[in-house]
């Protein structure tokens, strides 16, 4: 039974959310049951008040994503949404005080339920979160959330929370007025105290209405009908949104529209407008893309889908799955009987606890590879970044460089990063001290003894890497895993410098390390499962997202990202307007235009990688095929010596006192073409070239999971997030249509657009990636 109904001697009814699963989510069963209880409340004349709370750790975590992902019929979505709202409206119109006793996080639909209560009291739980994450999955708060937030706080205050999907902790929520009270006695509170407060409030407020149901109510800050108030805000709000999203995200637009349109009409109509936009969003391709990537695939990655499993564990997993199936079967029977459910629920919880205990034991047996002391080679930009991110996660770090000076300089940089966080109030001075104390900066290789993981982040040069790999290998224990932070050098070739290539793994960080969420783990030919597992668990521990790929030149991320940069240059070489190329990149949903990002990566580095590749090819007796970007790279590096942002001159000019702007002479050297391509054509080229290279990575076995491909592209180099990632982009486009369009592009612009056999095959079979 997902919701318990209990009435005390004072005729206060408590509805307690409960039921299967560790997290309470809103699904059809929950909605039906909530409505049944609320309907019962409307008939109860002796009712004094109502308390909503949860028996779980969270209050309500939001809608069941499976339900949203599976929704395809707008009419049905509209009807279910309207029914949910009708339930909440009945609840807030009972004429009796209704309190949300928030014993934990209330997100999305969970917080919308709380908003339909006249009073919100929260338990003082540091980890509890409140807010509207809907937008991050391409939908909107459709349980009356937009309508009530606008009526509580006004358009200007309410909109950013919902458009940005901001989550507040309990104190922020109190300050923002989202909740009315925090229950905290001597810093420690119990759910019982929470309930006492709720009851006390009910006794003190026997008759209460929502503000918007009182006579003379006006939306705070004015409504769109009073242009003297709103004329400053309404015209510019869509512009501010467009500046961020370039119209690639329907959800924030719909949130803005539903809020503004809703503010012009009465409450019921406003909620209906909200439902219509929701039905449109939830059935849209963009929402499915975002749910695929940011829910299913990201969760799968975090759950260790790409992490090698020990044999024992695998067998156990299978058993557990089988047990799960049996349990489901039993559940069905149990529901049919409808008996003794609760007693068994308790037993199930007990079982959950046992399982947790088992997990801990398993880790003790070494199945989860804990990193306790990390050795970082190189205290430069990447090295100290890795050290910083690791100490923040509680790992002791030995940071070694060629001299004590350089090692100390790296530690200074970390101190500076910490100072920023202290200034923003995120870290206390004391914490800063503790964090720094965990970093041992040294020039002595011997200090690395005792580390259980080594990551080298020295200069991207084969000889330099070879030397540190050998030097370190002599000091560290035989079982210590060695990770190399290279972005381009094949791992298998680097592993050759190690005496224990099975312990050698690629751990590719992105720059700046402390801001970038992705780490690409690369499996060399001889890399062991244990090494991958160690790297994987370490990446999760420092709060980043690991993807696992097989060795290849540029691995996955650099290889595909390079195609974006290259296509931008190809367009320039063809004589497309440089600004139009950059705008097309932004319109495509990329964070930065291809020329600007080339400057940031550094064009000399691009040249260097290409030449290295050429040499490696030659050594294998092969010839590196020419690319339309070659001429541009050569010209920028050798002819005009404008290599990028670092040098203050690249495709852009970098005046010290003003914003960068495109070098005015570009069109002199790359004269305008007679054929000006429409933006849509350039957008297609920029995205297709990346999607196609990803498909090739898949075909070659560099990538083995679509989750790694999609999440890697979005977290790694900000590939158009609305698309759901490089492979989901193909799915959403329609594989067959994509193949046809790719062929068209290949015939016009070159073989880099020729769809790989794998895609052609998928298209023929009607399969997705």
């Amino acid at each position, binding site marked *: 039974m997902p919701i318990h109904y209990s009435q005390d001697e004072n005729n206060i009814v408590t509805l307690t959310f409960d039921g299967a699963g560790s997290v309470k989510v809103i699904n059809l069963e929950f909605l039906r049951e909530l409505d049944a209880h609320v309907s019962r409340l409307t008939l109860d004349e002796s009712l004094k008040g109502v308390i909503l709370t949860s028996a779980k750790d969270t209050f309500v975590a939001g809608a069941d994503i499976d339900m949203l992902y599976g929704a395809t019929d*707008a*009419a049905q979505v*509209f009807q279910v949404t309207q029914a949910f709202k009708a339930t909440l409206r009945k609840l807030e119109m009972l004429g009796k005080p209704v309190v949300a006793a928030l014993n934990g996080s209330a997100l999305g639909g969970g917080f919308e339920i709380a908003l339909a209560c006249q009073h919100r009291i929260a338990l003082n739980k540091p980890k509890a979160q409140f807010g509207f994450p809907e937008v991050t999955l391409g939908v909107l708060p459709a349980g009356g959330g937009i309508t009530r937030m606008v009526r509580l706080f006004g358009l200007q205050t309410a909109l950013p929370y919902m458009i940005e999907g901001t989550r507040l902790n309990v104190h922020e929520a109190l300050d923002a007025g989202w909740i009315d009270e925090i229950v905290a006695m001597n810093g420690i509170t119990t759910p019982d105290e929470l309930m006492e407060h709720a009851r006390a409030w009910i006794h003190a407020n026997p008759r209460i209405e929502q503000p918007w149901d009182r006579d003379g109510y006006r939306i705070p800050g004015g409504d*769109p*009908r009073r*242009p003297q108030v709103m004329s400053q805000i309404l015209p510019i709000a869509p512009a501010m949104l467009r500046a961020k999203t370039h119209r690639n995200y329907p959800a924030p637009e719909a949130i803005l529209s539903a809020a503004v*349109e809703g503010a*012009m*009409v*009465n409450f019921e*109509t406003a909620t*209906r*407008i909200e439902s*219509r*936009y929701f*039905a*449109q969003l939830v*059935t849209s391709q963009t929402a499915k893309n975002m749910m695929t990537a940011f829910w299913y695939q990201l969760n799968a990655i975090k759950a260790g889908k790409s992490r090698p499993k020990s044999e024992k564990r695998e067998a156990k997993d299978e058993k557990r799955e089988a047990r799960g199936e049996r349990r489901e079967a039993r559940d069905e029977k149990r529901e049919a009987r409808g008996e003794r459910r609760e007693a068994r629920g308790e037993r199930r919880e007990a079982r959950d606890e046992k399982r947790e205990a088992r997990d801990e034991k398993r880790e003790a047996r070494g199945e989860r590879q804990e990193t306790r002391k990390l050795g970082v080679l190189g205290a430069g930009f990447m090295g100290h970044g890795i050290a910083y991110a690791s100490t923040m996660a509680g790992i002791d770090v030995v940071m070694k460089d060629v001299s004590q000076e350089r090692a100390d300089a790296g530690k200074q940089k970390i101190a500076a990063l910490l100072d920023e966080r202290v200034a923003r109030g995120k870290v206390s001075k004391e914490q800063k001290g503790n964090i720094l104390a965990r970093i041992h900066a040294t020039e002595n290789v011997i200090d690395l003894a005792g580390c259980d993981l080594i990551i080298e982040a020295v200069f991207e040069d084969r000889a330099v890497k070879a030397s540190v790999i050998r030097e370190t290998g002599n000091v560290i224990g035989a079982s210590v895993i060695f990770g190399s932070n290279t972005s381009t050098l094949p791992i298998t070739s680097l592993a050759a410098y190690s005496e224990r290539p099975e312990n050698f793994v690629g751990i590719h960080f992105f720059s700046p390390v402390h801001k970038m969420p992705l780490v690409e783990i690369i499996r060399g030919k001889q890399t062991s499962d244990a090494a991958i597992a160690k790297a994987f668990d370490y990446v999760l521990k420092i709060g980043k997202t690991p993807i696992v790929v097989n060795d290849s030149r540029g691995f996955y991320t650099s290889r595909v990202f390079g195609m974006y940069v290259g296509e931008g240059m190809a367009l320039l070489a063809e004589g497309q307007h440089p600004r139009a190329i950059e705008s097309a990149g932004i319109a495509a949903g990329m964070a930065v235009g291809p020329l600007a990002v080339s400057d940031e990566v550094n064009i000399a580095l691009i040249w260097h990688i290409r030449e290295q590749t050429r040499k490696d090819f030659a050594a294998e007796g092969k010839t590196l095929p020419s690319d339309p970007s070659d001429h541009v790279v050569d010209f920028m590096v050798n002819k005009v010596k404008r290599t990028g942002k670092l040098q203050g001159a690249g495709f852009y000019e970098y005046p010290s006192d003003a914003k960068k702007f495109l070098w005015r002479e570009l069109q002199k050297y790359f004269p305008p073409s007679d054929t000006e391509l429409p933006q849509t054509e350039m957008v297609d080229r920029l995205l297709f070239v990346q999607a196609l290279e990803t498909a090739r990575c898949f075909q070659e076995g560099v990538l083995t999971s679509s989750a790694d491909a999609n999440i890697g592209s979005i977290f790694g180099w900000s590939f158009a997030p609305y698309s759901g990632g490089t492979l989901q982009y193909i799915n959403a486009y329609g594989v067959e249509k994509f193949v046809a369009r790719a062929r068209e592009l290949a015939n016009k612009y070159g073989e880099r657009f020729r769809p790989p056999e794998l895609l052609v095959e998928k298209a023929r079979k009607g399969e997705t990636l």
Partner: protein
Amino acid sequence: MPNEAYIYDAVRTPRGRGKSDGALYEVQPVDLLATLLRALQERNRLDTSEVEDVIVGCVTPLAEQGGVIARSAVLHAGWDMSVPGVQLDRFCASGLEAVNSAAMQVRSGWHALVVAGGVESMSRLPMGSDGGAWFMDPRVNLETGFVPQGISADLIATLEGFTRDDVDRYALQSQQRAAYAQANGYFKSRLPVRDQNGLTILDRDEHIRANTTLEKLGSLAPAFEMVGVMGFDAVALDRYPKLERIEHVHTAGNSSGIVDGAALLLIGSKEAGERLGLKPRARIVSAAIVGTEPTIMLTGPAPASKKALAKAGMNVSDVDLFEVNEAFAVVPLRFARDMGLDGTENVNVNGGAIAMGHPLGATGAMLLGTLLDELERTDLETGLVTLCVGGGMGIATVVERV
């Protein structure tokens, strides 16, 4: 030989009750227009860049209905950016004024293809909320002898001797005719309004009360008695000194309903129609606009109609069907009398604004579409649309099927 102006298409939305419980209250007026613009485009496979202007009547052009809603609607509907738009206001005549202006532009040869019609969301922007010198400026108010239209309607009833029973019977006829027409699918130019998901918001005229009776109508209180007693009766009696008093016969039941809606027509030259492969439905024969005494205000339809007929060299007997806006029941009754018609046999044969409502800026265009549908259904030739207009004006348009 001047150019002729043809009607190639006519579409309208259903009329939703003009209150917050009305179905179209949730719909932005710009969406009402965009719905119709897209329909015109689809139904006629129209290259929208051929349209030289979009003229939209709107009486309360404020807030979401303001700011030249015609141009906003053109862009919102995804029409070619070369299509301009203009909003005009001639009170209740606005929708027909738009049509007449379009016809004049086409007949002058200056424009080849024009969209004309109107929109009004009375649930969102209540009547009168735009103000105006006529009633808000005390000098103009006094000079013009301003009274609300309901007083004018009661004044006509008093002068003409129409009793409460007469006007209620007329109202009942409007309801019955409209209900019958709706039940039998006569409103061919009416299109459903749908949401962004394609879900129907409204597909019928919401204001019709098919089950009303004379008794029910008779039980309604006079709507304008109180303001009459407070002073407006005195204004009317000052202007009509032979009257003893004003008989307050008009009620919510025999006056036009407050509703939301929009209507558009596609009007163009013969040549433009041929070039674009459009089939003309009717020719706009003539049009007229007149001013009349402002206190009685609502007597314009007859002089306007006579003027329009005279321009066309036609007689009243040449007209097969009349659409006279039912602002109040006395308006068509007085019109029939003024024009020498035999009752309202050929007037508003499918009901009117008493049953279906009067979305101010859109009504004139709606009536023309309704008239065309009925001429085609009954295979008749000639029709006349006329409306009384605030401030004491009248408008009329004569059309002929081709």
